[in-house]
């Protein structure tokens, strides 16, 4: 069984929500990113999202853009990140998901990409600017390799699209909690809970929520109704501020523990 599916199964048996942190791979270096992944696992992360740096990240707010540009200063590529996953698999079984833009995957070659993901131990891929209908080969190759394909559902998705996206997603469905780019928000929108419930009527695949979650209180709130809580920019900002100092991974781990503990402080569906 794919590590993502196995993890969600384990969590569901305990009525717990997954905590899913995002970091930009290669910021400040790939070596530091690998250390951070191991700290995130210790801090209680269930799945880690690794952002592939891209020169034109149109779906990202300024925090993630700057992290990508820092990684690109030393030319961190999709090949390099897959290589880092191979290395990480010597010491951890934590489920790993690549969060990427389409053009690096296209340049890599979709078929080769799927094969290398499988060989390295990548468990899933989210391609933020690839709607499922634009490249059927993408899903076909990743399905064949046993690598999960996660797609985004957003507040603007029509009912027909929610059905298509829920059907196309394996591993989990990623619900974008508000229209806009990645980044921290002061408050969560009320409609998120209803949207998650409506998606769950279309699919038995777990539904995780991201974009804008940055505090333990928000993490606990979302964990009350979603199968997973995704936090990105708040962690990426902290990594950016601490930079390449030796104690950075441990400090990031300590911050993430507060978010992960909050997500586990509540049972999914208890307050529904």
């Amino acid at each position, binding site marked *: 069984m794919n590590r993502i599916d196995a993890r969600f199964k384990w969590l569901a048996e305990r009525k717990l929500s997954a905590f899913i942190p995002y970091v930009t791979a290669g910021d400040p270096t790939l070596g530091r990113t690998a250390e951070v992944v191991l700290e995130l696992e210790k801090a209680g992360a269930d799945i880690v999202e690794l952002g592939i740096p*891209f*020169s*034109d*990240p*149109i*779906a*990202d*707010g*300024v925090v993630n*853009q700057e992290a990508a*540009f820092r990684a*690109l200063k030393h*030319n961190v*590529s*999709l*090949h390099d990140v897959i290589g880092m996953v191979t290395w990480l698999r010597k010491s951890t079984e934590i489920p790993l998901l690549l969060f990427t833009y*389409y*053009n*690096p*995957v*296209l*340049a*890599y070659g979709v078929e080769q990409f799927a094969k290398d993901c499988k060989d390295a131990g990548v468990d899933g891929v989210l391609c*933020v*600017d*690839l*709607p499922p*209908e*634009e490249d059927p080969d993408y899903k076909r190759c990743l399905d064949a390799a046993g690598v999960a394909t996660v*797609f*985004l*559902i*957003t*507040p*603007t*998705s*029509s009912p027909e*699209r929610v059905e298509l*996206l829920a059907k196309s997603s394996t591993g989990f469905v990623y619900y*974008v909690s508000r*229209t*806009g*780019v990645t980044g921290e928000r002061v408050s969560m929108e009320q409609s998120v809970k209803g949207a998650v419930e409506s998606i769950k009527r279309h699919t038995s695949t777990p539904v995780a929520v991201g974009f804008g979650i940055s505090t333990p209180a928000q993490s606990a709130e979302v964990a009350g109704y979603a199968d997973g809580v995704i936090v990105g920019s708040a962690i990426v900002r902290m990594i950016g501020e601490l930079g390449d100092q030796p104690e950075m991974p441990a400090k990031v781990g300590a911050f993430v523990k507060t978010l992960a503990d909050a997500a586990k402080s509540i049972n999914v569906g208890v307050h529904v």
Partner: protein
Amino acid sequence: MQQLKSLSETPNAPYPYPDARGRYGQFGGRYVPETLMHPLQELEEAYASAKADPEFQATLAAFQANYVGRPTPLYFAQRLTEHWGGAKVYLKREDLAHTGAHKINNALGQVLLAKRMGKKRIIAETGAGQHGVATATACALLGLDCEVYMGTEDMERQKLNVFRMRLLGSKVTGVHSGTKTLKDAINEAMRDWVTNVGDTHYVLGTVEGPHPYPLICRDFQSIIGREARAQLFEQEGCLPDLLIACVGGGSNAIGLFFDFILEEKVKMIGVEAGGFGPETGQHAARFAGGVIGMLHGAMSYVLQDANGQIKGTHSVSAGLDYASVGPEHAYWRTTGRVEYAYANDNEALDAFQLISRLEGIIPALESAHAIAHACKVVPTLPKDDIVIINLSGRGDKDVSQAARFILGEEANL
């Protein structure tokens, strides 16, 4: 006469692109974050409904005639023709359209469309500033709020246009990320649109981006070729033999070419920006140096590295300084229907001066690339051939930039 008459009208034959999926062969499509998928479907439907609405078309036509000043002249350039000693040269004078370039054709059409859709706010990207000025103008005319994103390097190169946009009541927001040029301005405009898609329409300025943008822009720009066909028939009683236009995203070129695309005898050349020369890596010649890739929602030719990261580009002309090209141009290049060439910075600057002296027309540096390639081709053609060059914009905006290259860095106009 019956046969001759047909030359003055657009052929009524079917042209199948884009297909139902927004593709031109393997190019085009709609590669965007999910937030934009439904809004793009809505835009496609709203545009189809406006296109079929005689009242919308009549409103647009009235503004084109009375506000933009269309039709723009098709001018026989006698001295340029004598100088080159080859084919007869006509210039399609888009520089004489209101705001000084062809960009107003698309901007006015899209702002009218946005108003019909009930949008309250307009955003746009701009490179040279011509599309930003055109959009700011249309928003002033129709009373909509407007915000234009522009790379800070381009703002420096095109200070005059920045001031013009602000004078027209628009907000101009500098983009500091990445290469600080057009592609980064598009990134920022897309981020704004993703966030404010409910009340905001994004007026994309060229035949680029996700479907239906390349189609909408082609439709609004193809008035250039329709007019040119009728005007040349009036003056010469025949079709042209060759069309030449510069290609950044490619909207002025599609505007001139599209009406003739099914006329097999009409040859077409699109001219990209060669910058310091494709061999230097400092250029924007996508067909000479790019590979198939996806940028800003469309599959096309893209200047990128082996890892799929988009490369920085260089051109003396901000309007051609872009890493990708409209998907329909990529399709025409693949089928061989249109030939694509490039002109380097210094060739464009020579052409800029040549046409200023010979015809009393100071062209935009973008349009000077088309003239520069004509310098190589026209002298080799028979004297009874007819060439139309799209003079896509006027050069007032470029005078201080050109002075620095021609007179040296110390020139300060």
